[in-house]
């Protein structure tokens, strides 16, 4: 596309007329008393079902507000997909408290004021076919997202026991999740009147941390129903529930049953004071929650103490409808990630700023896929990194789901990493040399991952699926994935192999056996410039990130997360393009000749990005990524 047309597109999409959408406003939060009420109602339902449950409540940014373990509840739960697979995390025993926390965090992190998703929704979107059981359909749109918000992440905030009120970490989010994101039913979001997302509830009572392998039925799942009872009075508006939202032509699943299936009336539940110490107790969870502190109030999302607030407009300006970007802040209310120059000397702070503005512009003008109302703009988090993996800037639209914060950084780093000529040697140092060899043999290319090919996150995902091409059941696996008979969402291949030692160390820490994992995922080589490695919050394997180039030279990566994957791809690709056009310094997408979609294996070409057909609100512009 010529410069003039690019500028015209940019001007057009920032000049579109306003339309109805979710607006930023003061958010509500959970009180400690409400946390108690939620737990008590869940316990009430568990008693009615003869179940012994562990229940956790978290706020929107992942602070654990309470963990209650009913007397006699199983101390541990077993990770199991039910696919009869061994390896990875399959059959691992984990504390039930961690399972409950992961579910609560998932319910909170996947949701927003425009969409209410549950762990059952997560189950639907991470499996080998979408929907599971439908052969010859691509894998779930967020395939791999379960390995995000990891306890080893250098980005996610850590809770330190005894730190409540004493350390700035205490209230700031996004907090890490002990097991990443959960797909086991029993994690639901929590809302207050007016549609404010205030947190999530997670329940485990059956001793199994798994997923729903059969979507054609409607389970009577104790974990889910106990959570529904706890959610009573804090449910989402009906119109934003997952079952009113579609992706890839399929309606998403919220829960299998509703309040009509409860065996007890939540309103008749005893108070928390009446059950605490009688039917169970608050439980200490090292690294997540201190029982001695009692039930905690949640943080108000958008207030500085939550770690998220609106930027005042001086850094990124304003966007469609006068909207401003949201930034992440530290304990002093300062921007944690303002635009900075690359540690490798390849991007200036101004270039980073302009790329971010380009991406935010596309987001605020783009039509959302996975939220309501239908006319709402896209809500995402945007991360920009240098070639050392250093985060150069992070910003978001105001209602992006919190999970996208960590995932956007994963995507930016992953696209950068795979496009870096050091990728093969780094992976080999980290013990993944066999995967490098498999990938090279797969493409018949001896220099793969050392030859400067530009990989989008979609491209990485293409070869990290149990079938190649994705979804063609019976085909061989992509070289980074386990084969189908050894694959499950808990045993995926390279993505987990890179972090499994971190997870194991973290479980030992929670058990009191050893120090915590470093805030540095993977065993990739450590760089002197950062004191860390290039994938320090883990690899991500679904679409939404591209490397950044200056001419033929890679200078970084950009990652997007929070809406549909085509929307994420578009914001990364087009946003980078627009930023580059405005800069006129050679910054932009990788030259077409070196993109991974020039590679083919088994006669099938990889994909680089895929953008929505007619992506902008109140605009007829089509094919906006074509030719760039």
């Amino acid at each position, binding site marked *: 596309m010529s410069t003039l047309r690019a500028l015209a597109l940019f001007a057009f999409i920032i000049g579109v007329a306003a339309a109805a959408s979710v607006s930023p406003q003061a958010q509500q939060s959970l009180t400690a008393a409400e946390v108690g009420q939620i737990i008590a109602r869940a316990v009430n339902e568990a008693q009615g079902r003869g179940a012994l449950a562990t229940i956790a409540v978290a706020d929107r940014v992942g602070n654990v507000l309470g963990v209650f373990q009913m007397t006699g509840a199983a101390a541990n739960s077993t990770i199991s997909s039910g696919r009869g697979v061994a390896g990875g995390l399959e059959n691992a025993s984990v504390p039930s408290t961690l399972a409950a926390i992961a579910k609560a965090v998932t319910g909170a992190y996947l949701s927003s004021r425009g969409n209410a998703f549950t762990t059952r929704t997560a189950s639907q979107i991470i499996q080998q076919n979408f929907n599971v059981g439908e052969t010859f359909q691509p894998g779930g749109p967020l395939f791999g997202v379960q390995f995000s918000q990891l306890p080893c992440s250098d*980005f996610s905030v850590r809770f330190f026991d005894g730190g409540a009120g004493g350390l700035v970490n205490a209230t700031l989010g996004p907090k890490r999740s002990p097991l990443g994101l959960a797909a086991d039913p029993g994690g639901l979001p929590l809302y207050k009147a007016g549609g404010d997302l205030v947190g999530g509830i997670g329940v485990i009572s059956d001793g199994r941390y798994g997923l729903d392998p059969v979507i054609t039925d409607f389970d009577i799942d104790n974990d889910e129903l106990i959570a529904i009872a706890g959610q009573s009075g804090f449910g989402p508006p009906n119109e934003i529930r997952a079952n009113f939202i579609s992706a890839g032509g399929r309606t998403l699943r919220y829960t299998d049953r509703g309040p009509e299936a409860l065996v007890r009336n939540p309103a008749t539940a005893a108070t928390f004071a009446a059950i605490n110490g009688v039917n169970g107790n608050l439980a200490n969870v090292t690294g997540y929650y201190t029982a001695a502190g009692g039930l905690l109030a949640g943080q108000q999302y958008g207030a500085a103490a939550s770690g998220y607030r609106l930027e005042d407009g001086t850094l990124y300006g304003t966007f469609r409808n006068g909207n401003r970007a949201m930034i992440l802040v530290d304990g002093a209310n300062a921007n944690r990630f303002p635009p900075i120059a690359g540690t490798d*000397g390849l991007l200036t702070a101004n270039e980073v700023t302009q790329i971010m503005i380009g991406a935010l512009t596309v987001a605020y003008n783009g039509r959302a896929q996975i939220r309501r109302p239908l006319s709402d703009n896209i809500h995402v988090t945007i991360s920009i990194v240098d070639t050392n993996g250093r985060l150069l800037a992070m910003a978001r639209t105001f209602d992006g789901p919190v999970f996208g914060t960590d995932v956007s950084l994963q995507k930016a780093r992953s696209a950068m990493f795979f496009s870096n000529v050091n990728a093969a040697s780094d992976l080999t140092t980290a013990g993944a040399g066999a995967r490098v060899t498999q990938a090279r043999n797969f493409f018949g290319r001896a220099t793969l991952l050392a030859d400067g090919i530009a990989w989008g996150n979609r491209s990485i995902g293409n070869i990290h699926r149990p079938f190649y091409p994705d979804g063609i059941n019976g085909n061989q696996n992509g070289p980074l994935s386990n084969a189908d008979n050894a694959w499950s969402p808990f045993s995926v291949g390279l993505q987990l192999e890179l972090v499994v030692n971190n997870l194991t160390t973290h479980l030992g820490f929670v058990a009191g056996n050893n120090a915590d994992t470093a805030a540095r995922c993977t065993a990739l080589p450590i760089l002197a410039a950062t004191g860390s490695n290039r994938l320090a919050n883990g690899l991500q394997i679904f679409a939404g990130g591209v490397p950044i180039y200056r001419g033929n030279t890679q200078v970084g990566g950009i990652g997007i997360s929070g809406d549909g994957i085509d929307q994420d791809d578009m914001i990364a690709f087009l946003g980078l393009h627009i930023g580059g056009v405005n800069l006129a310094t050679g910054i932009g997408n990788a030259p077409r000749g070196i993109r991974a979609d020039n590679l083919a294996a088994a006669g099938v070409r990889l994909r680089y990005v895929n953008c929505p057909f007619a992506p902008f609100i109140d605009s007829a512009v089509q094919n906006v990524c074509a030719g760039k």
Partner: protein
Amino acid sequence: MLGAASVIALLVALPSSGFGQTLSASGTVLSGMTVNPASAQITYNVDLAGDVPTATYVMAHMPDGKSLQRNNLGYWLPWGGQLDTLIDNKFVATGNTLTFKIVDQDIRDRMFPIRFVIAYRTTSAFKFGVFEVSPQ
């Protein structure tokens, strides 16, 4: 962009860590430690294994997004990640042991864990190690 420097407290006799550990060109993962944030006292001893440092460096990377380096006066300055902009802290070895004096101050206003990088140059190499500090 560089911001204003922040002053660290006077150094006192400090509990230390790292005896027997060496730095390396590929980066050594050093033992971590916990501190009382209200009065954090951090030093790190490394075994030079015969190396003769010509310059010594200390850097810090924090979850609040900031990267800093320590100068020879004990001031912490914003650092952009380029090795050629590092400031020599002028630590002197005692025999084969090099002691890095890092922090002696209240750091309760910082996010944790803090990732420290200690490093030295020789005539032929740049060697470094990384360790994390968490609150007690």
